[in-house]
């Protein structure tokens, strides 16, 4: 699974995810990626793309959970991402990237690793795996 989230100079905020699914997948099983609100979600608060164990990501309605937590708590994207990965999902289940409407970014996982990268107009830039 691959994903990207971005906010541009006009305040457009977008989430995208694409996947080849799961090895040995049967019976037309569908994972979280194409389920709006689960593996891919964007509101006027935040854009979220998930990766990992699709069934768990769907059960947690992950992307929407992050957005609702930010809007109604209220909370930052860091607090909402940590809530999802540490309180809602279990160890080893998922990775998450997100950007909020102000360009604050979040990239974290409760798995051993996640291929990830981030960059912004203030020159903050990094690529990581573990």
């Amino acid at each position: 699974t691959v994903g990207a989230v971005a906010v541009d100079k006009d305040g457009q905020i977008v989430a995208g995810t694409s996947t080849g699914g799961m090895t040995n997948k049967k019976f037309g099983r569908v994972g979280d990626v194409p389920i709006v609100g689960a593996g891919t979600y964007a509101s006027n608060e935040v854009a979220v793309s998930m990766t990992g164990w699709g069934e768990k990501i769907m059960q947690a309605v992950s992307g929407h959970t992050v957005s609702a937590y930010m809007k109604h708590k209220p909370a930052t994207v860091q607090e909402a991402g940590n809530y999802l990965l540490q309180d809602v999902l279990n160890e080893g289940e998922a990775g998450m990237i997100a950007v909020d409407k102000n360009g604050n970014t979040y990239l974290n996982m409760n798995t051993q690793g996640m291929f990830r990268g981030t960059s912004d107009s203030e020159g903050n830039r990094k690529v990581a795996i573990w």
Partner: protein
Amino acid sequence: KDWALVIHGGAGTISKEKPDSVVKAYKSDLDEALSVGEKILKEGGSALDAVESVINYLENNPKFNAGKGAVFTHDGGHELDAAIMLGNNRKAGTITGVKTIKNPISLARLVMENSKHIMFAGEGAEEYANQFDLERVNQEYFYTESRHKAWKRAIEEEKQDGAQSSVIEPGIPGDFFDEKKLG
């Protein structure tokens, strides 16, 4: 901030024993993917174009499980999914179970921008794609040696474990999720 971009290439149990050359190659490709999006955003381009172009780059890169490099289904084929969503007006386009679309995220965007619907599945999604000038490929295009080996291993393991159905039948006691379900 004028703009911000975050990308991922998948999460899971990524072995730390990978040789340095492999780690460097992955980091270089993630770097390249970032550059694709940065160029668009720096020049005042849209987040939609940046997200689609970054994911096109990753879909075309056989290292990642999307597009070229997609894993194998039980039947030895490839079924791809993608979704894109614009938060400002909550417009979204998603597709699932496509087999001939080289860049699924681009079809998802076409759904978002041209259809009154949000999600198309399987043959319906393929048929919807026919009205656009979208690159189509056959299933061999998605083949990579490493994913083929992983598929063979999964089939072997399944034979040893007994027919582990991936359909969750009612009545299976306890935790019916099988660790092998990690996408």
